[in-house]
């Protein structure tokens, strides 16, 4: 009896020690009831119909299963099941959530996160939007604001200030929602097996990439803490700061998990890297490659992509570097035929004709049915 009491006392004290705010109550197969919410769900259903048929959606079962697995391990098995996940091949960092639970993950996001925990922090953020029904709140806020502006424009002599403040209010409201979703995602992450510090890491790396892009384009690298008037999200610096503070406060020490991110991405990494290289963002892509190599070392796909990146910039020194990267990739033994094509083209442009033609011949021998075979053949003869 005493033991039981003691146990329950420990239980209560353990509960009291948990200072984390409770998660919202989860309701399975939630169905909207009000006119507004049913309306925006209907629109979202139509949008999802279109998205489902989209050509840019990646339907690879394994990759989809991986993303779903990370979502489930972040927000919990009960919550994640109702979500439909669509991986869209768009080389930029983004994910979106519709009011009806349609989660769209852009391929650029998968390329940038370095482990499951970072991906989980973003998916948790998006799920937070869904769970907190942010689209509905935003719709109502905008309607209220636009009503006010319409009346003000007719009834008030100089309504400029009212309208200015209302429009500013729309964006401030959006930023507040994003921050709320950030903290919601953080709450999921602290309760999951993943370290909560990953949520701030994502933004640190994004800032690093933005700096590299700016420098690469001869711009000025700068980050602001305060968001602009029309900003829909808090600045990356603000997000990194408050999420880092939260993770220091949470101080969660968790056993290391076996991370499957690299394995899950293996098949798609060359595809996503290729999309990234085509963005003509030398600084950002170079940062991204180095960031990925920090986790996995310079693997063959990373070396090939780096070769492509340098070859496309095409300064004489870049062509020499590109050839070296391709040769390193080939030296690893698992290079795709395209590495020989890249090597050949880089060497040809460096006026090393014989070596270049030899590499191109190897490419054609390894991949005779390549779509550009006829064109490459003209470079050899």
């Amino acid at each position, binding site marked *: 009896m005493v033991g039981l009491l003691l146990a329950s006392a420990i239980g209560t004290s353990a509960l009291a020690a948990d200072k984390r705010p409770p998660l919202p109550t989860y309701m399975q197969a939630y169905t909207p009831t009000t*006119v*507004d919410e*049913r*309306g*925006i*769900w*209907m*629109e979202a259903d139509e949008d999802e*119909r*279109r998205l489902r*048929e*989209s*050509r840019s959606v990646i339907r690879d079962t394994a990759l989809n299963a991986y993303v779903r697995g990370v979502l489930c391990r972040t927000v919990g098995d009960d919550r994640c099941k109702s979500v439909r996940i669509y991986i869209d091949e768009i080389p930029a960092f983004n994910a979106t959530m519709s009011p009806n639970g349609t989660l769209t993950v852009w391929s650029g996001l998968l390329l940038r996160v370095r482990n499951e925990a970072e991906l989980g922090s973003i998916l948790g953020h998006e799920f937070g939007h869904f769970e907190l029904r942010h689209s509905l709140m935003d719709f109502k806020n*905008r*309607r209220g*604001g*636009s*009503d*006010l*502006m*319409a*009346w003000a*424009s*007719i*009834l008030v002599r100089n309504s*400029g200030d009212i*309208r*200015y403040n209302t*429009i500013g209010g729309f964006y401030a409201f959006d930023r507040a929602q994003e921050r709320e979703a950030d903290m919601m995602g953080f709450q999921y992450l602290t309760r999951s097996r993943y370290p909560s510090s990953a949520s701030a890491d994502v933004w640190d790396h994004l800032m690093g990439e933005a700096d590299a892009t700016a420098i690469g384009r001869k711009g000025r690298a700068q980050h602001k803490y305060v968001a602009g*008037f029309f900003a829909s999200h808090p600045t990356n610096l603000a997000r990194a700061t408050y999420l880092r503070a939260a993770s220091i406060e949470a101080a969660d020490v968790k056993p290391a998990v076996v991370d499957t991110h690299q394995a899950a991405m293996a098949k798609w990494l060359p595809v996503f890297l290729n999309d990234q290289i085509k963005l003509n963002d030398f600084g950002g892509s170079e940062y991204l490659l180095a960031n990925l190599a920090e986790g996995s070392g310079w693997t063959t796909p990373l070396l090939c992509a780096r070769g492509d990146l340098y070859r496309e910039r095409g300064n004489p020194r870049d062509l020499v570097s590109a050839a070296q990267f391709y040769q390193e990739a080939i030296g690893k033994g698992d290079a795709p035929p395209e590495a020989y094509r890249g090597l050949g083209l880089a060497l040809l442009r460096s006026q090393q004709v014989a070596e270049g033609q030899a590499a191109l011949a190897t490419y054609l021998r390894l991949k005779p049915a390549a779509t550009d075979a006829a064109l490459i053949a003209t470079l050899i003869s």
Partner: protein
Amino acid sequence: MITLCRATLVALMLAVSAIAPAYAQEKTGLKPGFVLAPGTARIVLMRPSIRVGAQSTGGMYEPNADWTDQAKENIATALAKAQTGLGNSVVGYVEPVGAGSAKVAEYQELFGAVASSVIEYQFFKGNRLPTKKRKDQFEWGLGPDVRTLPGLEAADYALFITTEDHFGSTGRKVLQVFAAMARVPITAGVHKGFAGLVDLRTGELVWLNADMQMGGDVRDAEGADKRVRQLLEGFPGKPVEAPIAAAPAIASAH
């Protein structure tokens, strides 16, 4: 910077609150010489796009699921009734499941894009393309591959229908009255729609009817009848119009 923002805001507000109906009219385009004799063609009705909702005081579209459901039902009934007046059999399209569905979705989108191009660049003055100014011409199409859509092998024509309604809310109507007193023109409600007929053998758009101020409340049966009547105005090959259309018989080499 701030003044710039304000100028933008004022421009934005004007755009939102005082859209004068610049092209508030209806228009029909028919491929010259096109004749559809009654009882000769099999027409397939593609999944109509129907959106019904309210318009808030500030002019925002508020989608309404109940009204949309009612409208879908009413318009389907009205179409079934109107079918007898079209002179040819109209059957609903059975959407394929699996590989073909993406292609169908693409063509639905393509039709929407072509139809809005016709409306924007040929039907109404203002933004008309120089090449579309000549009278009696109607040259638009979806490409001949439209016939490869699954389930359309036995069909001759595809009929596409789109309607969109934003019913002015009470707040919007009250605002309209006050605005009229302040001599600011404000519209309440958006009711637009278009219907088009595509020749499945050639992919040509043979007929398109667009109306930016449609009548008929699609939320009830009678209104839907009226809406469908207006959507199908000028539909080629109606029995009543057949004698007139039959005149240029040489042109019907089609």
